[in-house]
């Protein structure tokens, strides 16, 4: 039985165990969607940010966070969503990138930096350069099959060396 706050596990450590519902190889912290964990006694507030505006996993993330913190003895759990600043793949941790690659998902490169107020240029030709390496055999020069993949954050690519298709997390 948990009765005082001193016996509770650090809520940040509890939050750190919760995985992403669509990419369970990553924790929410690896993904960079956990912005803040604040607690007082048995009350805890977790602030998260969605990856994409319509991310259908958001509700499940909230439920999983609540369940994990309730199981750890927190009686009052609030999960807040903030939209600003907008999530970027640059927030995925080094650990997260390694786990993605180990699971066969090519991690994202640096997100495009667009300083200034100028219009965003069109990209009419699919990038074919060595940018994305095959997560299976490490070969460069993989080709894009589709810019949209099975989840909002990924695209589909194929490796010309080992012929394997794979997912790549898009830089945003």
């Amino acid at each position, binding site marked *: 039985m948990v009765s005082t706050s001193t016996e509770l596990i650090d809520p940040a450590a509890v939050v750190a165990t919760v995985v992403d519902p669509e990419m369970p190889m990553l924790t929410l912290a690896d993904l960079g969607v956990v912005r803040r964990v604040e607690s007082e006694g048995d009350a805890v507030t977790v602030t998260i940010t969605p990856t*994409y*505006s319509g991310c259908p996993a958001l509700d499940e993330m909230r*439920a999983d966070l609540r369940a994990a913190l309730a199981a750890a003895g927190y009686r009052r759990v609030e999960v*807040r969503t903030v939209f600003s600043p907008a999530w970027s793949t640059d927030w995925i941790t080094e650990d997260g990138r390694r786990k993605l690659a180990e699971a066969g998902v090519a991690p994202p490169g640096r997100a495009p930096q667009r300083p200034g107020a100028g219009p965003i240029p069109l990209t009419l030709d699919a990038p074919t350069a060595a940018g994305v390496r095959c997560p299976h055999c490490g070969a460069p020069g993989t080709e894009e099959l589709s810019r949209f993949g099975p989840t909002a954050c990924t695209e589909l690519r194929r490796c010309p060396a080992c012929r394997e298709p794979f997912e790549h997390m898009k830089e945003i």
Partner: protein
Amino acid sequence: MNAAHEDNVYDGLADDHGDTHWAFGTGFEDGGAEITAPLPAGVDRADLAEYCLMLGDDALVYSQRLAEWVSNAPELEEEVALANTALDLLGQARVLLARSAHVEGAGRDEDQLAYWRTDAEFRNVALAELGNNGDFGKAIAQLLVFSSWRLALLHKLRGSADPVLAAVAVKGVKELTYHRDYAARWALRLGDGTDESHRRMSAALDWVWPRVAELFRTSDVERRLAAAGVAVDPAETQAEVDEVLDEVLRRATLSRPQRPPAGTIGGRSGRQGVHTEALGRVLAEMQSLARQHPEATW
């Protein structure tokens, strides 16, 4: 505790999560902390609620049209792309409708705005409601114009004095950059493809073109809010959109259609609630379930 998800995502449906069920419906109790942010100083409450509806309805209605391609697209990859695009826009719509409902302050929520308004209460442009009737060329022409325009609009909206509009804009710009590139590349493949694909892409542009002029027409609400630093005057996006479309058309060996703009009714069109008959059909499909089961959550 999440081992079940690693084995099979469907196992997650059986987990006890209280009244939430993964992948079904809405019922989200938290639309985002920013939704309840105070109004920017000196901004008219009704104007801001209306402007959020305009941008929200564009995204909501068009996401319904895009979703019609699910299980109907020519290839699985295109189906996934169009569904993802629809999902991004639906996400933008939800935040904008929630903000509109909060600003309005009449006790409505995003679901009531989506499911219980009649067509004359919607504020989307006609481009968003056009049915492309299973013609992939038309779907690409519509998406090319819509995403080029909305990207230019949201890019300028990033500095809005309203924190919700600014947040939606910053996030939306990243999403729409992908949508526009997708549509532009398909316009290239079809326009610069076979004689038949060129002919059909050309016909699709002719079909969508009369709806372009409305995108740059400034309503009174937009004019007032643009002056207050909250909204973007859509007329100011025209030069950028023209430039983008011209570049795509040139590369795709297509020419700019010579089609006159669709007429208005006494100067009124989508922003004033005057719509084509197509909107009624979109709403009939979108709203029927919620209206048959008014109190249901799922």
